[in-house]
């Protein structure tokens, strides 16, 4: 009983619930859930989940990062171009990952050390990163050896799908960070910068770290997407930034910082992904598609925020329960 209560009051619970419900709807529509469905679902959407993990880290310290989508695009074009220039697939992927890390560190430097507002800073760097991506590969095209795709769609250690391992790397890394003293400091910083500073917490270093982590997450997302499509497109990640923030909010991560966790980002992103696949498979016209997507997104965000609002909860309780 207690465990059930704990689960229900968990920040990420509404997102998990939404995900499960829509998974069921999708199952009904496509006639049953199969292992192959999960495999294709996870390999298509691992990128979105990784970006959501990254952006959640920045939101937890009361910041944000809207440049992650551009970093994903950049990683994609770096991998394609490097492969075409004669690097091997692992080398190209490493180069992509490194460029994402550099972008993240740059964001971290601007936000943490220069103390520029994270929204403005990453808006600016987002445009810059997107520009670099276009400069490297002006048109969609290029090609990566299919061994990359095979590796990505295959298993590691025998039975675990590669995308799950890639997401797992981020999750384990984050869990380890949470176990460090730094974990508490991140939540403290998210609650109040001034108090965090007065408590002797190194604010600049923490901000630098979360943006670097977000860069890493975007890098892994870039690898996932590149391997999934095995081609290059300089705008492949352009819609991911905002979607990932919405995912985090649906997952119960407070935009004011200090509340929530990466599971919120993961479930939020999973829900959004399944939602998109349902709307796409319903064979609606593209105009109606985006309208419905937007509408459900709005409902999702509203519901999850309402679920987290204690005062609102008591008000609703009072309204339903009558006089108390």
């Amino acid at each position, binding site marked *: 009983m207690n465990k059930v209560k704990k689960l229900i009051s968990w920040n990420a619970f509404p997102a998990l619930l939404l995900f499960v419900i829509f998974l069921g709807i999708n199952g009904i529509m496509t006639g049953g859930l199969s292992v192959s469905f999960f495999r294709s679902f996870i390999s298509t959407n691992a990128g979105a989940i990784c970006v959501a993990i990254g952006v959640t880290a920045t939101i937890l310290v009361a910041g944000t990062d809207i440049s992650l989508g551009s970093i994903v695009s950049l990683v994609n074009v770096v991998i394609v171009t490097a492969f075409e220039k004669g690097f091997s697939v692992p080398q190209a992927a490493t180069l992509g990952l490194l460029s994402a890390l550099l972008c993240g560190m740059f964001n971290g430097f601007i936000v943490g050390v220069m103390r520029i507002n994270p929204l403005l800073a990453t808006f600016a760097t987002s445009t810059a990163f997107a520009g670099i991506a276009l400069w490297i590969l002006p048109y969609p095209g290029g090609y990566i050896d299919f061994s990359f795709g095979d590796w990505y769609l295959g298993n590691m250690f025998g039975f675990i799908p590669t995308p799950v391992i890639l997401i797992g790397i981020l999750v384990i890394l984050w869990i380890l960070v949470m176990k460090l003293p730094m*974990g508490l400091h991140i939540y403290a910083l998210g*609650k109040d910068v001034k108090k965090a500073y007065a408590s002797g*917490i190194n604010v600049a270093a923490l901000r630098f770290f979360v943006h670097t982590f977000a860069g890493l997450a975007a890098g892994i997302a870039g690898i996932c997407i590149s391997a999934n499509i095995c081609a290059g497109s300089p705008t492949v990640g352009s819609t991911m930034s905002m979607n990932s923030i919405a995912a985090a909010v649906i997952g119960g991560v407070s935009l004011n910082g200090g509340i929530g966790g990466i599971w919120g980002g993961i479930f939020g992103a999973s829900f959004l992904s399944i939602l998109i696949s349902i709307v796409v498979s319903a064979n609606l016209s593209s105009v109606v598609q985006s309208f419905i997507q937007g509408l459900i997104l709005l409902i999702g965000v509203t519901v999850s925020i309402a679920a987290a609002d204690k005062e609102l909860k008591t008000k609703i309780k009072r309204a339903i329960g009558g*006089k108390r």
Partner: protein
Amino acid sequence: MGLTFQKISKKYGAVVAIKHAEMKIDNGEVRAILGGNGSGKSTLAKVLGGLISKDTGEIIFDGNVIDFKSPKDAKKNHVIMTSQELSLFGNLTVEENICICDIPVKGVFADKKKIKEKSLEILKVMRLENIASKKVEELAPNQQYMVELAKALVQDPKILIIDEITSALYREDVEIVDDIIKNLKKKGCIVLFISHRMAELYAMCDSVTIMKNGETLGTYAMQEKTESELLLLMVGMKVDTTRERKNHQTESRKDIFIKAPHIKIPSYGTEESLEIGRGEIIGVAGLQGHGQTDLIDALYGVFGEIKLEMDENEISIHNSRQAVTRGFAFISGDRERDGTFQERNLAENVAAVKELVKHEKITDTRAILDSFNVKYDNPGQLITALSGGNQQKVVVGRWLSTKPKLLLANDPTKGIDVKARSDLHKEFAKLAGEGSAVIMISSDDDELVNVTSMVECSRVIVMYEGHISAILEGASITRENISAAAMPIEEKTNVDVAERGGLDE
């Protein structure tokens, strides 16, 4: 050895916060710093704590010049500061908060068991073991202050700065703080104690430094000066202190205009009733968290519908907006949360209720600010530019300009200086004199005794476990009677209190 301040000064832009501060404190000395709001004492504390940098001067501790670049730097040298604004994080638990400045580790990871042990050890001293795993945002303000102090103690201070911490504590907490400070003294720790409560300063401090307008005026042994001498030095003029008071009027017929037969106290699940007369000041006393805040919140419609009889009409109030339109006003001691609009200027802060809720025009903001003796440059400046006491006067100005019929005040003089405090008391008495009523909670019993003596018609109700345990009137309003009624089990019998009767049935 000890701690020496030499020729410290600090300017914020054109505003001089500290003009010239100079003092010397010995090891193991507890030094009070006394001054009006805006006299520079908090700034001086922040300079020492590494929160802000000084412009000129030197601080010497045990023979070494110290100049901390950040609070982290100060903490490394065991200079710990507890601040007026609190440094706790509401989203973390009490034990996490206590250890956040120096989280114990096992290898590289945070050691949860150690965190628990370390914080329990200190919480035991404060008799607060039961709150260790609660989140700080769930605690009452005075408990938060205790946790703030615990957070400082855990860092093994050599210099401890206590800035206003006791202004929200209740009597039993103050005793614990007193014990803790005596202990620190024994270890040779220097304690800088900033408080407005004279009784505490006399009880805990060895010596006192007076600050006024950014200058240190002088240092005296605590016993050398009387309270009124200190106040005279501090404000440069005579103030009615809590000790000098008029006699209470004995029993006068009340002109009841509000009847509240069912006031819910959700913390205890109890109900109380209250009849409020015109021109009356009702003080609400009691130990911390015995339902005083609930009583006021309930009247203001915070807990949903409350039925009242007002001027012989049945009315019901569902929320604070309706309360305001009925002529209620609400002043809280928690300015940051319930009082000021921080990012707004003085004019907007004054106008908030009258223009936005009651849709009446305010013609002259300056006149309102001046009539409450607010110290300000112009109505366009941000409210955060003022000192705490002046901010509170702006909030009071906001409400009193609406000519309320009932003023609800929850510890309204928390953390403001003696002068501002007595100014507020006068305003409350004036309001009562005009035929309105004031209900005021205070954690300071002396304050209640004082403020209720200023009007003809007054009562002090004492709350215990969600019930009104005593109603004191006239000459029975004394500090002793309030204390006794606040802990009715122990001393109930030998005190002459007007026991409340007939209401429980």
